C-alpha cells in the first residue's frame, strides 16, 4: 500500500480564513436577547423544519451526517452518525438528549461564550436535535462554577418557552419538547458522558462501563444522546445554509466553524471563531503573537489531556483531527495553550498531574492511585529531589494506567505526562539527581546492577 501523503504541509487548510464570516458568534450586538436573535434570522431553522416540514426527522439526521459535523467536545465523533444510533421510537419509553456544557477541561472556555453571547443558537440546536430523534426532554448540564452563566441560560430558556419555541406544541405543531437546565457542583469527571448521566440522576458521578452505550441505555436506563454545546449550536446553521455549505468550510474530513480558545503566553488571549484546519502559526498571529516577542517552546492544542507538542512539531500543523493525530496530539476541545521559551515544563506537567489527581473520581484503582503517584513523583522532581530513574518509573505508571479503567480519565492523565517526558526529556533529566544507588556497593561488597524501588 502506498504511503499516504503527509498532512503536515505547513499550508493552511482553512481556505480564505482572513475574510471568514463568523456564524456561531456573529458580530451582532446584544445577540443574547431573543428579539435581536429573531431579527437576525434566529429560530428560522426551527420554523422551517418543525412547522414547514423542510426535513422530517430522518432527513434532518441525514443532513447533519452529510454536513460532516463532528463533535466539538473532544472525541470528534460524527454527530449525525451518533444520532442515527438511537433506537426506533417506542411510545412506552422516554428518550433523552443531554447537552454537555460541563466544560471542565483545563484550557477550554468556549462554551461559556455561547452561554453568555448566543444561548438561543444552542437552544434552537437542542430543539432541532430533539426533533431529529423524537425526544421530549433535554437536560442541559452546565458546570456548577458557571452559576452566573446558568442564570443567563435559564433566562434565555424561559424567554424561548414564553415565545412557544420550547414546551408543548411548539409553533402550533404536535411536536413538544422540554429543556431542563441542570447544574453540577464542581467535578471534572461529569464531562464524561456516562458520568454526566449518573450526575444527572443524582448519584456520585462514577462513569459507567460501555457497552451498553447511551443510545441503548442512558439516563435512567432509557435511550439517550449526549452532544456538546458547540456541536448543537452548529445544527441551526446547517439547516439554514445547507450541509454543502458546512462541509465546504475547512478540511474535508473535519469541516465547519470552530471556537478556538487561545490562552497562555499570548498577547490577545481569548475565544476566536475560525474554520477548522487553521495553522497553529496563524492562530498565534491573529492572537497578537507571543507575549514579549519570545519564541514558543510548546503548544497544547486541545486542552490538558492532549499531548503537548514541541514548536517543531506544531509550527506546520493545522487544527483538525487527522493532521493533529499525525503531528502527535489531538484536536480535543480546540483550547490551545501557548507556552513560551521560558516555561518550566516540569512545573507545568506537575500541575496537570495535580489536576487529574484531584479530579479522579476514585472508582478504578489504576487511575485513583496512578494519578497520585504521577503527582508525587513529579513534585519530587520539581523540587530537585527526584532521580533520573523516576522518569522511567513515571512512564511505567503511565503504561499501567492507559486503557485499564472504566473511562478515559486515566488515559487523559497519563498522556501529558508520557509525552511531556518523551518530548522534553532533557529538561526533566536536568532537574533530576543521578541514580542514587545504581552503582552503589552493597553490604556484601557486591555492586547492585539494577536499581529496584
Amino acid at each position: 500500500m502506498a504511503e499516504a501523503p503527509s498532512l503536515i504541509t505547513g499550508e493552511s487548510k482553512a481556505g480564505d480564513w482572513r475574510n471568514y464570516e463568523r456564524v456561531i458568534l456573529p458580530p451582532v450586538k446584544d445577540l443574547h436577547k431573543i428579539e435581536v436573535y429573531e431579527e437576525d434570522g434566529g429560530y428560522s431553522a426551527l420554523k422551517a423544519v418543525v412547522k414547514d416540514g423542510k426535513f422530517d426527522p430522518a432527513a434532518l439526521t441525514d443532513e447533519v451526517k452529510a454536513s460532516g459535523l463532528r463533535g466539538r467536545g473532544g472525541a470528534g465523533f460524527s454527530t449525525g452518525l451518533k444520532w442515527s444510533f438511537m433506537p426506533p421510537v417506542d411510545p412506552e419509553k422516554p428518550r433523552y438528549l443531554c447537552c454537555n456544557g460541563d466544560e471542565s477541561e483545563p484550557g477550554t472556555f468556549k462554551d461559556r461564550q455561547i452561554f453568555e453571547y448566543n444561548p438561543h443558537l444552542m437552544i434552537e440546536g437542542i430543539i432541532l436535535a430533539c426533533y431529529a430523534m423524537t425526544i421530549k426532554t433535554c437536560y442541559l448540564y452546565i458546570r456548577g462554577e458557571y452559576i452566573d452563566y446558568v442564570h443567563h441560560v435559564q433566562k434565555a430558556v424561559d424567554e424561548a418557552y414564553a415565545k412557544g419555541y420550547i414546551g408543548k406544541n411548539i409553533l402550533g405543531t404536535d411536536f413538544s419538547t422540554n429543556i431542563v437546565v441542570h447544574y453540577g457542583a464542581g467535578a471534572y469527571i461529569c464531562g464524561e458522558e456516562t458520568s454526566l448521566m449518573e450526575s444527572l440522576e443524582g448519584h456520585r458521578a462514577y462513569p459507567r462501563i460501555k457497552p451498553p452505550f447511551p443510545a441503548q441505555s442512558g439516563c435512567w436506563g432509557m435511550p439517550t444522546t449526549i452532544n456538546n454545546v458547540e456541536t448543537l449550536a452548529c445544527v441551526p446553521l446547517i439547516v439554514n445554509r445547507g450541509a454543502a455549505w458546512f462541509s465546504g468550510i475547512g478540511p474535508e474530513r473535519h469541516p465547519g466553524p470552530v471556537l478556538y480558545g487561545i490562552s497562555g503566553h499570548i498577547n490577545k488571549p481569548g475565544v476566536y471563531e475560525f474554520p477548522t484546519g487553521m495553522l497553529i502559526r496563524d492562530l498565534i498571529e491573529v492572537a497578537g503573537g507571543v507575549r514579549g516577542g519570545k519564541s514558543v517552546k510548546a503548544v497544547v492544542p486541545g486542552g490538558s489531556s492532549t499531548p503537548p507538542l514541541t514548536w517543531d512539531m506544531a509550527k506546520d500543523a493545522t487544527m483538525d483531527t487527522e493532521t493533529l493525530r499525525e503531528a502527535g496530539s489531538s484536536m480535543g476541545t480546540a483550547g490551545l495553550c501557548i507556552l513560551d521559551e521560558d516555561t518550566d515544563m516540569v512545573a507545568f506537567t506537575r500541575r496537570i498531574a495535580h489536576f487529574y489527581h484531584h479530579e479522579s473520581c476514585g472508582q478504578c484503582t489504576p487511575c485513583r492511585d496512578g494519578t497520585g503517584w504521577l503527582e508525587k513523583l513529579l513534585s519530587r522532581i520539581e523540587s530537585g529531589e527526584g532521580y533520573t530513574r523516576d522518569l522511567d518509573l513515571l512512564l511505567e505508571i503511565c503504561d499501567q494506567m492507559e486503557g485499564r479503567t472504566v473511562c478515559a480519565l486515566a488515559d487523559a492523565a497519563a498522556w501529558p505526562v508520557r509525552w511531556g517526558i518523551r518530548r522534553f526529556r532533557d529538561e526533566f533529566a536536568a532537574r533530576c539527581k543521578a541514580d542514587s544507588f545504581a552503582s552503589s556497593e552493597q553490604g556484601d561488597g557486591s555492586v547492585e546492577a539494577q536499581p529496584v524501588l
Partner: protein
Amino acid sequence: MTQPTNGSLLQPDYVPGEPVERHFADADLVWTDDEQKQIATFRSEYPTNDGAVMKVLWMAQNKFSWLPPDVIQFVANTIEVPYAKVYGVATFYTQYFKEKKGKFVLDICTCFGCQVCGGYDILHYLEEKLGIEKGQTTDDGLFTIQEAECLGACGSAPMLQVTNGPYVHNLTKEKVDGLIVDLKADKMPGFQSVTLPQDETDLGGNRRSDTEAVTEYQTPPVSETIH
C-alpha cells in the same frame, strides 16, 4: 410535598446507629413556602426523587452556608432519599462545603492556563496578605483561600471566583487589594462580561449593552513562579 416534621427529623426510627451531628436547631431546619415551591418544581423536572438532590443541596448550602450532617439529613428527608445517598453526593462534589468556611471563599485558579500567567503569584500574594495558607480561614471568619482547579476562564487568566459565584478576571495585585477592600465592606463583585478579541475589532468592544462591568482580554502578566 410535606414539610418534614422536626420531632422525628434527625432521629427517625429507621436510621440505625448514632444520631447525626447537630449544628443547627430544629427551628432553623425548615423551608419557607417559597423554597418548598421551588423544591417541588425541581422534583417535577426529574423522573426520580434522586434527580433533584444536587439542586436541593445547592439550595441548602445557600441557606445554611455549609452542609453539616444535620443539613444533609434535612435534605434527605425533604426529597425522601436515604441519608447515605445524599451524603455520598455531597461529598463527591468539591463545591459543596462539608466544613464551615469563611464568609467569602476565594477560589484562586492555579491550573496550568492560570499557572503560566501567574495564578500561583496571586495565590501566594493572598496567602501573605491575609496571613493564612490555602485551605485555611482567617480568624475573623471572613476569608477562606482555596486553590481551585480550572474554572474555565483561561483566556482572562489569572482569575478567581468568590464563594461559588462571580468570577474576577485578569487579576493583578492591585486588583486583589481592591477586591479585599470591597469584600470587607460587604460589596460582592458583580457579573463581569469578558469581551471577545474579534468583537473588539468588529464591534468596537463588548457586544453586550446591558452589562455594567466589562473586562477586556489583556496580555497576561508575567508569572514570577514558573520561570
